[in-house]
């Protein structure tokens, strides 16, 4: 059989799938609008919740209500963007049941990349928008001593935050190979992580602080960058200077994610699982 050079770039397959996913979401405008609206509502309610808490106390974990805007904005923006890109990986159990994962095996791309690019949840854009608005308000409302390094910090923190949450979604997917009906448990990983990220880590006691600071390092998503930008010192174990290590935290999450994914795939294929 004549071997033809493959057409297009390595990205061609992923782009084709993603474009079709976007088209299919637009194909049902009413349902897409409803989804957008409900996702907006979730974002607003989450914010209202935080606002109410901070409205009733003068400060929580060393942050007042204006400073909280930064914390909320950073954590929610990162989470929402990660969710748009890879949030559907927590449907892996369904993919396994439907045989979609078997179909992935029959295509010449890596399984994880196929899973990640198998969908894109545009409806969560509205939640990201809410978070972006809150973050902007926080950046303007707080007295930040802006310098180029702070801009770098804000941008790298957001990107690391997205990577950390994306990695957590992949961890959750890797675990679902073992717990086919375990999306409840893995949700605690992802959504729980998001919840923990939007709390000031100073409120956590020792073990929890270690957990969210280093094991599942969601403190790097929002809390550490927030106190660094505000020039606050930070609690024990989590000094503000750690904020610069966001990319390292993201790397750590992805090492865990890829390991769990690999173990999961091995388990599925049955070799040493």
């Amino acid at each position, binding site marked *: 059989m004549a071997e033809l050079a493959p057409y297009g770039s390595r990205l061609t397959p992923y782009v084709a799938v993603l474009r079709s996913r976007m088209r299919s979401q637009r194909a049902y405008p009413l349902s897409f609008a409803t989804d957008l609206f409900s996702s907006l509502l979730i974002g607003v309610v989450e914010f209202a919740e935080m606002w109410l808490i901070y409205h009733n106390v003068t400060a929580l974990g060393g942050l007042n209500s204006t400073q909280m805007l930064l914390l909320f904005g950073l954590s929610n923006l990162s989470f929402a963007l990660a969710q748009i890109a890879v949030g559907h990986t927590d449907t892996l159990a369904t993919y396994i049941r439907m045989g979609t994962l078997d179909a992935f095996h029959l295509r*010449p791309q890596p399984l994880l990349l196929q899973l990640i690019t198998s969908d894109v949840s545009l409806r969560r854009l509205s939640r990201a928008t809410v978070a972006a608005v809150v973050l902007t308000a926080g950046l303007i409302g707080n007295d930040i001593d802006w310098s180029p390094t702070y801009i770098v910090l804000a941008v790298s923190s957001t990107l690391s935050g997205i990577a950390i949450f994306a990695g957590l979604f992949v961890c959750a997917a890797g675990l679902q190979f073992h717990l086919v009906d375990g999306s409840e448990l893995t949700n605690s990983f992802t959504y729980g992580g998001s919840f923990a990220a939007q709390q000031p880590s100073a409120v956590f006691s020792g073990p929890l602080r270690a957990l969210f600071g280093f094991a599942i390092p969601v403190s790097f998503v929002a809390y550490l960058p927030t106190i660094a930008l505000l020039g606050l010192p930070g609690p024990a174990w989590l000094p503000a200077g750690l904020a610069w290590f966001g990319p390292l935290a993201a790397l750590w999450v992805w090492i865990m994610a890829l390991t769990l994914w690999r173990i999961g795939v091995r388990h599925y294929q049955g070799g040493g699982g």
Partner: protein
Amino acid sequence: MNTVEVSELTRQFVLRRSRRGRRGHVREVLTAVDSMSFHIESGSAVGYIGANGAGKSTTIKMLTGILVPTSGTVRTCGLDPVRRRRELAGRIGVVFGQRSQLWWDLPLRESFTILAAIHRLEPAAARRRTDELVEQLEMGHTLDTPVRQLSLGQRMRAEIAAALLHRPELLILDEPTIGLDVLSKQRLREFLRRERADSGTTLLLTTHDMGDIERLCERVLVVDHGRLAYDGTLPGLARTVGARRVLVVDLARPSDDLTGLAGATLLAAEADGMRQRLAFDPEITTAAQLLAAISNRVEVRDLSIEEPDIEDVVRRIYSAGDGTAPALSGAGAVARGTIPGGGLESAAERPGEQGVQDTAEGGAAGVEDAAQRGATGVDDDRNHASTSL
């Protein structure tokens, strides 16, 4: 050259069952595929048959890199399917009958476009290939329908087109005709024959439908409890399990029952003995000898011979498989003693398995039989279609 080479292939699954009323689990090892060895020559068409749970799908998953073998080796298109899965994916096409590889919410046309991109086919060539498949599989009118709205038959044709889009060397079909009506089955088979003739594609097919095997495959592998129970031709399989043929004679005058003929058993006499059906074992006597013996007694006006029903043949193999039957290969290799129910009497005891059977019991047997032929006869390759003189 062999497209598939399987040697001592074994796959075990560990099941953990909870014990009633106690804590903990019982660990059970299930051997789905048990040291299986076979080759599939490039360009050949092989039917892979076996009861549910016999290990067919497990084998296919190991051939395609979805499952890792517990032990033994697999080479598909010369590649280790697990380690070189991505390369292999470009060279094989696979259809799992009950699972879709299409995008359910998109028009069919788009699934083809995406798959072409996934296999990185050059767009113009991909379009030509799509048009070709669409025309041959008569899918033109369904191209703009979302996949979820397709009928089962339409979807199956679409799945097969999707699997063939990148011109694979090996096409693996896992129960492609399941749930299809007779006409759809027939069209699908015709297409597959043409495709193989044109492209020389190697075909591996699992099915419960013997018509698929008869029409498409020159060789059958029978798997039973994870072991290869038979490897050879389809007629050879029938011979191996000692299936009987049935001679139907129409007589000039009403006669007594034709009993006491060597090597034959009377199944039924109809219309005052004007039509009599006799089962005989081709290993013991021939149709000609039997006919001669009958002609000595009565005047025969017409006759026909019914070939063994393959489903019955396979059923015998399955019912024989109590796990102790040795894995054998080659036509005639299965020891006859290991197949219970090989005798005529025991076959006649199983109700409703075969047209012959129904005829023997039914009062208006001829009508019933005719109705049965009508049901299966559209699919012109059934064994009931008899050879009339």
